[in-house]
Each structure stands twice: as C-alpha cells, then as structure tokens.
C-alpha cells in the first residue's frame, strides 16, 4: 500500500534509531574475524538473504500472530526472540539494502513498502517485548534490558540458591556458564546469537540479578546440530545469576554486559536454572529441587555441552568454505526464526536456505572484500552514507547516516519499486535438516511441533492476563485476577508456590531465609 507522509517520517526515524544503535555497537568492538569461519563473508550473505526474505516471512508470521502478541509471548520465555534478534531484524535487512545501494543495484526508495513494513513490525514487537521498561531498544534505555514482569523476577529471586566462591555449586555454575558460552559461540558459527543477557534487576543492598539465556543448544533448527547434540537435553536454558558488589552498567542490544567494577566469578552470590520454549508454561525449573541436585545438573550439562562442542568442532573443521558460509549466513539470517516457532508456522524452507536472489552474490564474498565492505557499511564509510557537511551524526559527529533514509519525494513522483515480492526457492550446501526438534514436551517433527504450538497457548497469555500489566498490578494487586496470574507464574516455584500477588521484594528476601 502506498505510504503516506506520516508513515515515511516514522520509518526514517526508526531507521535512524537502529542506525545509531548499530554504529555504537560496532565501534565498541572491532570487525569480527575468525580463523575458522569466514565471518564477514557469511554476514554479508545473511544480509542479502534478510533483504530478500524478511518481508515475506514476517508477513507470513503475522497471518498467525501479530508482532505485538509475539512480543508478549517472547517476554515470558528465554528463546531466540531476544534483544540481539530484534536489533538484527531491521539491521540485517537494512545492511543488505545499503550494500546493494552502494553497488548501484537498488535505490534508497526501492522496496520502500517492504522497508516500512519491516521497521513497523520491529517497532510493534519491541514496544510490546520491552513494555515493562517503555523503551524501544536497550540503547534507548541507557543500555538496559529490563524485560521481565515483577511476578517472574520474584520467582527467579525467591528460588535462587546462594553460593560462595569455592563452594561446589559456585564452581559448577561457573564451569557450566563458561562451557555454555563457548558452545553457544560454536553453535552460532562465531556469533553471539545463541546467548543473551537481560537485566539488571535490582535485588537490593548492592545486589543485582542478571538473567542469562543460552539458546539453540540441542537438536533444533540448525542442521549442523543433528547428531552432535543428541545428548543435549534442552534447547534453551536460562540461568538467573545474583551478584553482589558489582553494577551492570551496560546491557546492550547484543545482550552483552559490562560492569563496574569489572565482573568476576567471585561476584556471583546466587544461581538458578530454567528451560522454556513455545510449548512450555513460561520458565520451567531444571534441577532446582535442591542445592545438591542443581550442582549435579550443572556438572552433567557441562559435560554434555563439552562433548557436543568437541563433536561439532570436528564436524565444522571438515566443512568446505561454502558450507561454512551457509551455516554462518543461516545463523545470522535466522536470528528471528523463533518468531515463526512462537506463531506455530515454522517452515525450514523459509529459514535454512539461501534465497536464489541472494545466492548470486556468493562469488564476490572473498575474505578481504567482505571484511572491508562490512566495515564500510557498519560504520559509515560507504558513499551512500555521506551527507551534507553540516550534519553531525550521533556518536561520531561526522556528516553521515548509517542507513539511507527513504526519500520523501516518492510521495509526489511515485517512482519506486514497492517490494521484492515473496520468498523464492533457496539452496544450501549443508546436509538436509533431519525432521527432529527437541522441545520441552518431547522431540517432534516440525508439523507436530507447529500443531502443538497452535493448539496450546499458555494460560498467562489469555487476554485477561496478557493485559494485566505492571501499572495495572500496582493498583489491582489485591484483585482475584492478579492473584491468579501471580500463582500461575509461581506454580513451579520452590518457595513461592501459591503465594499470590501481594509480596514485595523484601518479602521475597525474607522468605529465602
């Protein structure tokens, strides 16, 4: 549908928001390279796949579930529908666009209606997912991602097991976190997409809680995990981690953290462990029956992840460059794939193939060109970024914009191609994915998995609960609905089961003894 002025104004503002966010994230790192994976090359390929496929796959998802509803569902689980995914949603699409503008393949006004849709979807998801803080990005919120509602934070807080450096639980938790992080990097072909942190959540008296998600660990959507991850029992794991004497001053849009003073293992004072997915009733405890059980569980998972990591590393080391390119490009492109799972319409053809329109570019993607092109489009060095000399971009003060705005002139001359059209057939150099997906309710084929998701939405997602937001709770916590909602979240809680909506943070602390 032809856009109006207001839509274009908002589109360009959202585009600028993501551009500023992307610039900051990129300049506080260097261009990521790896001796194992051709990282910049696969990133560029993923951006093209996003450009040609995101409009189609997102429209398909919204025939099942709106972006706002997806945000509400994603807020209550630790999945790959997180801050990093949602930074990548517009960013990957827009970088694919910007790259092609610089090669003369498209103009800034081409695919305008796709672009408007993409950033509008992003906005609606973000506003919903981040509704408890009211920000659209972590950057907008001063580098914080405080997603969870009070009722879920209370469960995590109440059920944490205290631990001190040197204790078996402390050591097991740290070892698990290190292995999970390292395995997550390998699963995600060197990217940080399979792990994510949110928070901080204030526990009082110099204490904060960081919630760490590790996702796509078991046999799930990624074909390269078939077989090697057969002994990993959970696809997603969430580890709430209480700390003392350290303030997480940055939780950025890549789900990474920085702390003041610098964070060390000795700051960890409490830990927990949960799993979740579109079939679970929110977060479900893992090994949380006792301190000893949790210690054993961490150790067991640590061993399983290390075993899977060694097997996966050997598999990857035997790949061709095209296979590495595909795996990395799919990891990046499919950063938002869990939206399709949450909506119950996941189709591997949509997510683990390279669209033939993007595939054309493969011969260009040598290491040097990819490195330099990626650097150019991420930090404003491309010809398309340069604007009038009076302009001073946020963070750099240079006369640049990271993404070319959509020209308003299309409102009068109508001279633009509206859309790239539907998803087209794709190709892959990887082995075909086995029809095997591990979930919290068992291992299913994709049809069965989708059917189960469509047939069962959690109770907490019913409208009477879904809109019982934090401001509503403030004035209605003594009502029956609030009490019921809190009890639903507390169902699997060791210390809060049946306690209801009336507790405050100090009550939780007292209950923990």
């Amino acid at each position, binding site marked *: 549908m032809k856009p109006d002025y207001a839509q274009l104004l908002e589109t360009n503002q959202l585009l600028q928001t993501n551009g500023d966010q992307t610039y900051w994230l990129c300049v506080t790192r260097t261009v990521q*390279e790896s*001796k194992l994976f051709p990282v910049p090359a696969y990133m560029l390929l993923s951006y093209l796949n996003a450009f040609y496929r995101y409009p189609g796959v997102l429209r398909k998802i919204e025939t099942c579930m709106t972006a706002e509803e997806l945000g509400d569902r994603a807020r209550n689980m630790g999945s790959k529908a997180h801050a990093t995914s949602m930074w990548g949603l517009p960013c990957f699409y827009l970088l694919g666009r910007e790259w092609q503008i610089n090669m003369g393949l498209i103009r800034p006004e081409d695919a305008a209606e796709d672009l408007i849709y993409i950033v509008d979807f992003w906005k609606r998801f973000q506003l919903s997912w981040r509704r408890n803080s009211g920000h659209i990005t972590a950057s907008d919120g001063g580098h914080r991602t405080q997603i969870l509602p009070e009722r879920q934070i209370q469960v995590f807080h109440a059920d944490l097991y205290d631990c001190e450096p040197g204790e078996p639980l402390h050591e097991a938790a740290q070892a698990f976190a290190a292995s999970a992080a390292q395995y997550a990097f390998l699963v995600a072909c060197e990217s940080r997409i399979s792990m994510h942190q949110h928070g901080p959540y204030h526990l009082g008296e110099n204490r904060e809680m960081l919630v760490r998600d590790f996702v796509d660990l078991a046999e799930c959507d990624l074909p390269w995990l078939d077989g090697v991850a057969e002994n990993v029992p959970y696809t997603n794991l969430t580890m709430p981690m209480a700390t003392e004497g350290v303030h997480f001053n940055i939780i950025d849009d890549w789900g990474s953290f920085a702390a003041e003073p610098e964070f060390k293992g000795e700051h960890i004072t409490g830990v927990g462990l949960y799993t979740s997915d579109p079939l679970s009733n929110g977060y479900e405890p893992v090994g949380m029956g006792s301190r000893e059980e949790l210690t054993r569980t961490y150790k067991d998972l640590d061993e399983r992840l290390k075993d899977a990591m060694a097997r996966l590393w050997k598999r990857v080391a035997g790949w061709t460059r095209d296979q590495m390119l595909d795996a990395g490009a799919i990891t990046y492109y499919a950063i938002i794939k869990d939206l399709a799972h949450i909506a119950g319409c996941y189709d591997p053809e949509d997510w683990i193939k390279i669209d033939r329109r993007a595939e054309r570019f493969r011969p260009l993607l040598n290491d*040097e060109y990819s490195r330099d092109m990626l650097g150019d489009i991420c930090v404003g*060095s491309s010809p398309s970024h340069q604007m009038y000399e009076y302009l001073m971009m946020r963070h750099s003060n240079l006369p640049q914009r990271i993404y070319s705005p959509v020209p308003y002139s299309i409102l009068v001359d109508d001279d633009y191609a509206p859309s790239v059209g539907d998803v087209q057939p794709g190709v892959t150099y990887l082995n075909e994915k086995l029809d095997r997906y591990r979930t919290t309710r068992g291992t299913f084929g994709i049809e069965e998995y989708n059917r189960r998701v469509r047939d069962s939405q959690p109770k907490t997602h019913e409208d009477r609960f879904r809109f019982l937001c934090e401001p509503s709770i403030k004035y209605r916590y003594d009502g029956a609905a609030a009490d019921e909602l809190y009890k639903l979240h507390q169902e699997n809680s060791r210390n809060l089961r049946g306690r209801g909506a009336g507790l405050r943070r100090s009550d939780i602390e007292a209950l923990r003894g």
Partner: protein
Amino acid sequence: MSKIFSDVDKYESESPSSVVAAINTAMQSVVRERFEASGQSWKDFVFGDSLESITEEDFRAVEKTLIDAGHRYDWSAAISPQERPDAYKPATGTTEDDLDTFCFEDPEAPTGETDSDGLELRGVGDNVVSYSEDTVGVARYVRSTTRVLNWLTEGVPENTIAVIDDSGGTLTAPILERFKGVICAGGTVRSHLGILTREYGIPCLMNSKVNGIMEGDTVRMESTARAKNTEDYQAGREVTANIWRVHSP
C-alpha cells in the same frame, strides 16, 4: 550508456578500501549495461529483469578482475587460502614447519632492552580482567585447525600461553580452557575471546601489539594491569598491559 542513480552524488566519496571501491565500480558498470539492455524503467527493472540478467557469473567475473590484475586477497579464515591458493596471499604461520621462523611483527609494538630482572619488553595488550599476579608461560602460536585438532587429541602442552590473531571463540573452542594465558593480536576486551577467557578465568590480553615473540619463548603477561573498559575504548584512551620475553638469569 544509460545512467544509474549513483552516477549523480552531490557528496560523492569513495570507499576507503580500494578493493571495495574497485568492486563497487565494476558492479555499477554491470548494472548500467543490463539496465540499458532491458529497455525498462528502473522501477520495473530493479526487482524484475535485473534479478535474472545480473547473474552469479557477473559477480564471479567482477571478483576475478582484481586477481587477473595481480591482486591477492587478504585472508582471515584458514579455509579460504586453502581452497583458493591462487586468490589469496600466502597463509604463513599456519603449519608446524612455519612456526620455527614465524612470529607476529607489529611495527607499533613497543619494545625494549632486557632489564635487570631479565624482562625484555616485546609488546602491549588490552587487559580483559585484572588478576592478583602476572602470568608466566610458554608462548605457542595457534593459527590453524590442524594444531587445535592435534592438541585436542594429544593434549595442550603444559603452561601454554596461546598467541592468537583470532579474536573469535571458535577456533580454540575445544581447548581454550587448557591455556594458561592468551595473547590475542586482534579484537577488544569485549570480543568473543575476551568474553570466554573471562568466563574461564584465564588471563587474556586483547588487541595486542607484539613483535618478535617466537614459538617456545617464555613470556610474562602483565595480568595485574588495570582492565580496559568500554569507556576507555569510546574515549580512545590507551590502557595497556605489558608483554615481556623472559630471559633466564
């Protein structure tokens, strides 16, 4: 020849990378040619004929132009020069034989004479986490999957301080935990390798500028130095830890 939109640019500039500039220019020529041949308006051409008429072969030909002109591409992933040795610069320092003579030679690395404690400054790096003691071990380069696979099978030699130019966390994934320390010639403290060494409690210096450290040298990392943080990077502040070669008294 038809013009395309990018032929007119008031704030005209070129990519700082000559490779990118050359490839962009070559691609624009292809687009110009195919657009003219289509006889269509741009808005019909862009997601119509162009998707069929600009082919994989065009991209391949453009990339090959630079090789034909004598350029050899920098490589980052070991697989790239392995599969196309004709297209990339030589992959030195990646075989066991190479390591007898190979070392990083960063011209910006500060170096100094051996002091009275037997310490010879060979470089600096950004400290990821500050520890209570400096780290002393044996420098060993890790630049290939072959070496990782060998050490995965046979075990990582005792006391290894891995010298790496890969700021990622995957090349060394199955053996990282067994390093005594890491000196990485790339990245920042927030790179993946920085994140992982922090998780494992392994002393690590990122963005290291080192010169002349040879395979088997005993080295000392100043892991007691202040850790570099995000604000330091943003402000462009140099906050570094020293790297010394240790000479026996």
